[in-house]
């Protein structure tokens, strides 16, 4: 066996007597063994345990006096830092975020989770930016189109009802007593009073005067108003004019036109073209006087 290995085994206190005998056969290793064995009998001078402890206690008493002061100082420092950090945090991150649009105004923005929102004219959304990751929920008044990133439940709360989804594209119209949800992709769940309605993709849910109407009519990727166009199907003239007033900063008077139904669309970019596309099918005419628009029935022919 390797003598060097036995030597280290012996030094670690693990060698057997036979192995030691083997080690002593070689003069070189016998010498190492003798040195190693003799060194065990050596000792250091005596350590004065008690005396050193007294010195040590004295040093600790001295240093702990200093330590107390620095402890208070560092406590004050930490407290000040925490105050500044907390203050800054609340200053920058607290409070709700509100997005609001006026007449003839559209707003397109992203939520903290990269979901996209397009807000139609005269509408308002507010949400808690700080807790968005925990709770995807926002409040809506008016009309907006959502492209929701996949993830936790996403809720749109309106005075009329709540719309919740997981990840999809949909439009919510919530004005006055009318509540319309159009689903462009995936599945949307609408809570209206105490009923839950699932709106699959390509469908429209309308609630007018507390009545639920479900329709299949969508052949689009996104609502028309996102493309600067308002489209109607058998809608009352009042509804159409209300939308027109939201898209253009004008006043409309239409005293003697009666209750007509309109099917069609108008653009958001040109007032004259828009008025023409509403009036012509309904056999109406109009005059523009600054911000004032007057609608009347076409004469004669």
């Amino acid at each position: 066996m390797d003598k060097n290995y036995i030597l280290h085994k012996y030094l670690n206190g693990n060698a057997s007597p036979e192995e030691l005998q083997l080690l002593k056969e070689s003069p070189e290793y016998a010498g190492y063994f003798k040195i190693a064995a003799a060194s065990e009998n050596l000792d250091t001078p005596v350590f004065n345990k008690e005396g050193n402890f007294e010195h040590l206690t004295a040093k600790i008493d001295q240093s702990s006096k200093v330590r107390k002061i620095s402890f208070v100082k560092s406590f004050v420092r930490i407290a000040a830092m925490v105050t500044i950090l907390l203050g800054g945090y609340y200053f920058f991150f607290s409070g709700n975020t509100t997005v609001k649009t006026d007449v003839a105004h559209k707003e397109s923005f992203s939520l903290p989770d990269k979901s996209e929102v397009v807000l139609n004219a005269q509408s308002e959304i507010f949400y808690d930016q700080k807790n968005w990751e925990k709770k995807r929920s926002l409040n809506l008044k008016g009309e907006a189109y959502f492209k929701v990133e996949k993830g936790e439940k996403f809720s749109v709360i309106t005075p009329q009802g709540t719309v919740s989804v997981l990840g999809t594209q949909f439009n919510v119209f919530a004005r006055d007593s009318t509540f319309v949800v159009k689903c462009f992709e995936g599945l949307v769940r609408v809570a209206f009073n105490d009923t839950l309605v699932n709106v699959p993709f390509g469908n429209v849910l309308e609630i007018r005067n507390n009545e639920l109407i479900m329709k299949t009519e969508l052949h689009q990727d996104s609502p028309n108003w996102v493309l600067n166009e308002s489209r109607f199907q058998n809608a009352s003239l009042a509804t159409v004019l209300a939308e027109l007033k939201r898209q253009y900063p004008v006043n409309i008077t239409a005293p003697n036109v009666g209750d007509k139904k309109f099917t069609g669309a108008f653009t958001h970019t040109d007032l004259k073209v828009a008025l023409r596309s509403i009036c012509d099918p309904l056999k109406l005419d109009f005059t523009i006087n600054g911000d004032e628009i007057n609608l009347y029935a076409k004469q004669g022919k």
Partner: protein
Amino acid sequence: MSELENVCKKEHFNKVYNDHSQAIWRFIYFKCGDQAQADDLVQESYVKLWQNCAKVSASKAKSYLYTVANNLFLNEVAHKKVVLQHANSKKKTFNNQSPEYLLEEKEFYEKLQAAIANLSETQRTPFLLNRIEGKKYSEIAEILGISVKAVEKRMSQALAILRKEIGNI
């Protein structure tokens, strides 16, 4: 004393002092050979332990002390020769030997002590930790922060130098 408790309580601190102060003192003495310096460094190490008591758990106190003592030692420049004494209590086996043999033994120990004193610090400390303190290679490796293989190498080197210095044994 529980493993997780720190040494901020006076009684725990005192226990750590009673358990380890002597071993640390000898460890430093192997390195510097100066009793007064060893006293100072032991005291300094324990003061540091006390100041950082909240950060050091009872189970870590021992290795913390060794590390601090070693670092303090490295900061000091002057090293003296290590003077060891023959521990009389341990050599009863030699009592019945002839006067010549006893004389030879005495010469041998004198040579041995001189040779150990001449070893470099890196060789002497592991050698004496092993021989006098009876520590295993693994413990020495931990104290000095080196590998077991390095301890083995230094032990071999120390023995080779001692044998050469002492001459015909």
